[in-house]
C-alpha cells in the first residue's frame, strides 16, 4: 500500500521541482510560484480578493452564511497565529452545534428514525444530539488526559480498536429487551453522535505520546474540523497538521493561493458533473446503475451498450464526487495555512491499482494505512515478506475499508437490524475483498520490482487495466443496498454477454 505519494502541492515524489516539460497552460496557472503574485497576495487587497473568491467558491456547496463563517474562520486562523488554536476550536465546535440546529443532517435523521420506532414524541432529536455532542467533546478531552497519564493503557496503544469496541458495546445494549422506549433512544443517540469521531479521535490519542504533542485545545479543534465535517479525517490529525503548517507570511500566502486554485478546481469539477448530468442523463437518457439493474432483473434489460454506459457514467460521477469534495475540504484547510496534499490527485494517470488507491482518495488511504496497514505490518508474518505485505494491504484496503463504510451507514442497524444490515452489505464486502486482493497483488508485484512500462502503449495499457477494473468493480460498490451480490454478479456477466 503506497504512500505519502503526494508532496505538499499534490505532486508525485521526484517530480516536485521538475518544472521542465510542464505545458504552458499549467505554467500559466502556477500563480503560487510567481513572486509578483506571492507578494501581492500578502497585501490587504490581495487578502481581500482571496477571501471573497474563497467565499464565492465555497458558496456553490453551502449556504452563504456558512461559507462566510468557514472561510472567515480559516483565514483568521492563518493571519492570527497566536490565536490559532482558540479560533480553530471555536470554529469547529460552533460549526458542529450549528449544523445540528440549522441543517438537516445524518445524525438528526438517524436519531429521528429510532424516535419514530420507539414512538417517543416528547424528546426533540436536536436536544439529544446537542447533549451527546457536548458529552463527546468532554469525553474526548478526558480520554486525551487519560492517555497522557497512562501511555501504556490499551486505549493509548490501540485507540481505534477500543473505540470500535465501545461502538459494538453501545449497539449491543440497544438490542437488549429491557432497552425499550426512551433508554434505547438515548443509547442510540449516543452511538450515532460518537460514530464519526471514532475515526478522528485515534489520531489525537496517538499524538499524545509524541514528544511535541499538540495541546488538547488543538486536538479537540481538529476532531471533525470545520473544514470537513465528515466521517473521514481530511488533514489527518494534529500531528500531521503541525508538520504541514505554513509559518512565514510568504508561505501562508503561497498556501492560500494554492487554496484558491483548489477551490476553483473543485468548482470546475462541479460544473463538469452538472454538464455530464445534463448531457448523458437528461438528453441521452442513460439510466443509473440501479435502474439498469432493475430493468435487467425485470427481464427487460437495456442494450449492453446502454448498460456499460450506465456503469461508466456512474463510475465517472463517483470519481468526480470524490475529487470535488476532497478539493473543497482541502482547499478550506489550506486557507487556514495548512499546506496539505490534495485528496485526489490525477487518478486517471494511475499506473497500477496500488497507485490508483493512493491517488484517488489519499486521506481515506492514509486512515487505513495508519490504523490497519501499519499495525498489521509490524506484527504479522514478519518472516514472510511478500505475505506480510499482502496481508497488511488486505487488512487496510479490505477489512478497514469495510468497517469504515459499515459505520458510515450505521443507521441501517436501526432500520434493518444487525442481520439485515450485514446481509445487504455482502455486495460491498465482496467489493472490498476484490479491491484489497487487487491492490495487494499490485503491492507485491511492485515489491518484486515489476513496474509498468513507461512507453506510450504501456501507459495506455495501464490506464485501460486500472480503469476497467474500477468500472467493473463499481457494480458491487454502488452504495444502494437494494440488490444482492448474486444479482449484481448476474448483471455484470450480462454486460459481457453471459446470461
Amino acid at each position: 500500500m503506497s504512500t505519502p505519494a503526494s508532496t505538499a502541492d499534490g505532486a508525485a515524489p521526484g517530480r516536485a521541482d521538475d518544472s521542465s516539460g510542464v505545458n504552458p497552460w499549467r505554467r500559466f496557472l502556477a500563480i503560487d510560484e510567481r513572486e509578483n503574485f506571492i507578494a501581492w497576495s500578502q497585501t490587504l487587497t490581495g487578502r481581500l480578493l482571496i477571501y471573497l473568491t474563497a467565499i464565492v467558491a465555497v458558496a456553490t456547496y453551502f449556504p452563504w452564511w456558512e461559507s462566510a463563517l468557514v472561510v472567515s474562520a480559516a483565514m483568521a486562523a492563518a493571519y492570527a497565529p497566536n490565536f490559532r488554536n482558540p479560533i480553530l476550536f471555536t470554529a469547529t465546535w460552533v460549526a458542529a452545534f450549528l449544523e445540528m440546529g440549522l441543517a438537516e443532517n445524518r445524525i438528526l435523521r438517524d436519531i429521528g428514525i429510532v424516535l419514530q420506532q420507539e414512538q417517543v414524541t416528547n424528546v426533540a432529536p436536536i436536544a439529544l444530539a446537542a447533549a451527546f455532542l457536548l458529552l463527546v467533546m468532554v469525553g474526548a478531552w478526558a480520554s486525551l488526559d487519560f492517555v497522557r497519564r497512562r501511555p501504556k493503557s490499551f486505549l493509548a496503544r490501540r485507540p481505534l480498536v477500543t473505540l470500535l469496541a465501545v461502538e459494538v458495546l453501545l449497539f449491543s445494549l440497544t438490542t437488549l429487551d429491557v432497552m425499550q422506549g426512551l433508554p434505547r433512544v438515548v443509547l442510540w443517540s449516543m452511538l450515532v453522535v460518537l460514530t464519526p469521531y471514532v475515526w478522528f479521535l485515534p489520531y489525537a490519542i496517538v499524538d499524545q505520546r509524541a514528544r511535541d504533542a499538540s495541546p488538547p485545545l488543538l486536538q479537540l479543534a481538529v476532531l471533525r474540523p470545520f473544514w470537513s465535517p465528515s466521517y473521514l479525517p481530511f488533514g489527518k490529525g494534529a500531528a500531521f497538521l503541525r508538520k504541514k503548517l505554513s509559518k512565514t507570511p510568504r508561505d501562508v500566502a503561497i498556501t492560500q493561493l494554492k487554496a484558491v486554485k483548489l477551490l476553483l478546481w473543485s468548482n470546475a469539477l462541479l460544473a463538469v458533473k452538472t454538464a455530464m448530468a445534463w448531457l448523458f442523463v437528461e438528453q441521452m437518457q442513460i439510466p443509473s446503475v440501479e435502474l439498469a439493474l432493475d430493468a435487467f432483473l425485470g427481464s427487460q434489460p437495456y442494450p449492453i451498450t446502454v448498460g456499460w454506459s450506465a456503469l461508466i457514467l456512474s463510475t465517472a460521477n463517483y470519481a468526480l464526487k470524490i475529487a470535488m469534495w476532497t478539493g473543497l475540504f482541502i482547499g478550506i484547510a489550506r486557507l487556514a495555512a495548512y499546506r496539505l496534499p490534495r485528496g485526489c490527485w490525477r487518478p486517471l494517470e494511475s499506473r497500477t491499482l496500488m497507485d490508483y488507491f493512493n491517488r484517488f482518495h489519499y486521506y481515506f488511504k492514509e486512515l487505513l494505512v495508519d490504523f490497519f496497514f501499519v499495525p498489521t505490518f509490524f506484527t504479522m508474518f514478519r518472516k514472510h515478506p511478500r505475505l506480510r505485505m499482502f496481508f497488511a494491504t488486505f487488512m487496510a484496503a479490505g477489512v478497514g475499508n469495510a468497517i469504515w463504510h459499515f459505520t458510515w451507514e450505521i443507521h441501517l442497524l436501526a432500520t434493518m437490524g444487525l442481520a439485515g444490515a450485514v446481509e445487504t452489505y455482502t455486495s460491498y464486502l465482496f467489493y472490498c475483498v476484490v479491491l484489497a486482493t487487487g491492490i495487494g497483488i499490485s503491492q507485491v508485484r511492485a515489491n518484486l520490482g515489476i513496474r509498468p512500462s513507461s512507453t506510450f502503449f504501456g501507459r495506455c495499457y495501464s490506464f485501460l487495466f486500472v480503469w476497467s477494473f474500477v468500472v467493473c468493480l463499481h457494480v458491487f460498490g454502488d452504495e444502494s443496498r437494494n440488490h444482492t451480490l448474486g444479482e449484481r454478479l448476474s448483471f455484470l456477466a450480462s454486460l459481457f454477454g453471459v446470461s
Partner: protein
Amino acid sequence: MDVNAKQKLREFLKETLAKLADHKEFSDSESLFISGRLDSFSMMNLIMHLEESCGIDFSDLDFDVGLVDSVDDIEALVDSKT
C-alpha cells in the same frame, strides 16, 4: 551506527529514491518521508531493511514516521535500539 552501516543506509535510500526517478542529493538531516520524496511503500521496505541489517524489532516500538524520516532520525533510532 558505525560509518559503514551509515554508508550502506545512504546507498539503500539513494537506490530507493532513484526507483522513484528522484536523483537529487539528500543531506543527513533532510526529511524524506514527511516531505513526500519517499512513499510509505518505500518506508515498509526501509523497515524490512533495518529489521534485517540492524535486528530492530519494530513491533515493540510506538511507530511514527518521524522515527525514520531522515538519515539522522534512523541513526538515532538504531543507536537507541542496539
